[in-house]
């Protein structure tokens, strides 16, 4: 469509080596990425505790391998509610609810726990949190009218938040069979 100018052509021939290197480098890089992409597109993560691989897609099937939370596995095949994955040398079936497409994130602590954390270190810090403002004073709009018609109980909520169960112990508690 547009004729490559003579000068460019000349410099192409002169600098053929450089250009070859240029494209070789580009090609190598792209294929490197490509190969890793096909691997990563199938990457999934173990969401929770107590995930166990099974030989067959059945709850009665033999358990073969334990996977810990956050483990990166490759998904190979899916069958109904079952998902076949590969982790290192071991392969097996999991229930699809046990995996997530996204890496496992750290637990997000709520504000109330942050306040406790600060208090525990000896400093009495009163955070002017949103919930405190709403719960204690009640949020009012510019005309002084209370915005929400609903009652709130933040004391009960904080009571609830003070008693979280330990995850590992709860998994053991749940695994109990009569």
């Amino acid at each position, binding site marked *: 469509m547009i004729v490559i100018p003579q000068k460019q052509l000349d410099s192409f021939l002169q600098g053929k080596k450089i250009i070859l290197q240029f494209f070789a480098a580009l090609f190598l890089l792209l294929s490197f990425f490509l190969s890793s992409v096909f691997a990563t597109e199938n990457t999934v993560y173990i969401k929770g505790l107590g995930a166990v691989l099974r030989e067959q897609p059945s709850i009665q099937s033999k358990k073969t391998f334990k996977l810990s939370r956050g483990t990166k596995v490759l998904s190979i095949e899916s069958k109904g509610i079952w998902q076949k994955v590969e982790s290192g040398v071991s392969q097996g079936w999991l229930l699809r609810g*046990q995996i997530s497409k996204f890496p496992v994130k750290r637990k997000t602590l709520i504000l109330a726990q942050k306040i406790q954390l600060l208090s525990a270190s000896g400093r009495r810090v009163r955070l002017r949190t949103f919930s405190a403002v709403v719960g204690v004073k009640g949020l009012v709009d510019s005309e002084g009218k209370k915005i929400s018609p609903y009652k709130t109980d933040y004391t009960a909520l904080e009571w609830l938040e003070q008693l979280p169960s330990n995850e590992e112990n709860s998994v053991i508690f749940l695994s109990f069979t*009569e």
Partner: protein
Amino acid sequence: MAHFNKYLWLHIFIFSFGFAVSGQAQEFRLRAHHIFWKNQEAGTDREIDFGRGVAAKILGKYPLLRDERKHKYISQIGTGITAQLGRPELRYYFGILETDEINAFAVPGGYIFVTMGALKLMRNEAQLAGVLAHELAHVGQKHIVRKLKLQSTDSSLTSGIAQVLGSSTLASKIALERLNDLAFKMLMEEGLSKEDEEDADQKALEMLITLGYDPHSYLNYLQSLKPHLAQGGAEVLSKTHPTIEFRYRSLKEFISRHQLDNIQGKKNEKRFKKIMAKS
């Protein structure tokens, strides 16, 4: 230049041709982070902040049962489920509401409530696990946050809830409070969509199977709700959920589709009854 002009028309021709024949959205242009954040909607801490407000309203309507033994039991069962199948970034809290109404609530951010009325109706631990799992599925799939987002007038990806939740100005706090009310109303009056409830039922069943519980107990629990719904003992539940017939049929269909008929599991009836009997 004349050379180029000739081709310019060709270009315009080809471009217009492409325009004429195609009408699909360029979804493929969305990059990984767009898809990821679209899925995440608001950040987790914002979701928790938001959920706390709704949870406080539920506790404002129904008193919290401060029975440490019962609470600990529910919390351990719930946490046992979430540790394995919940969203790993959340810490879940489980509470019992002191009311004879039969219902359970899932609030964004990981607050799960079940009423005393519902517990009294349950026969075993598998049923409790099933009800909790149903609520956990709502949190896991962010049904409420998504529905709120659809209801908000501005539908662009970055505005709406994420914006309201992210800001700290008084105006946005007022907006947040209104969103909170909307969510509360949704739980008490409107309910989620039929599809969301269906989805949560199926997820609950899958969770029960994964955890080794008897999945059929959950179906039995749904059946046992029927007479109470007719008598008006679960006013909110009947307003906010599809009919039991629909849910039962849909689950049966799911079971046969995935050949889950023969799956058995534990019920832990004794442990459940022992804890529920004492007060």
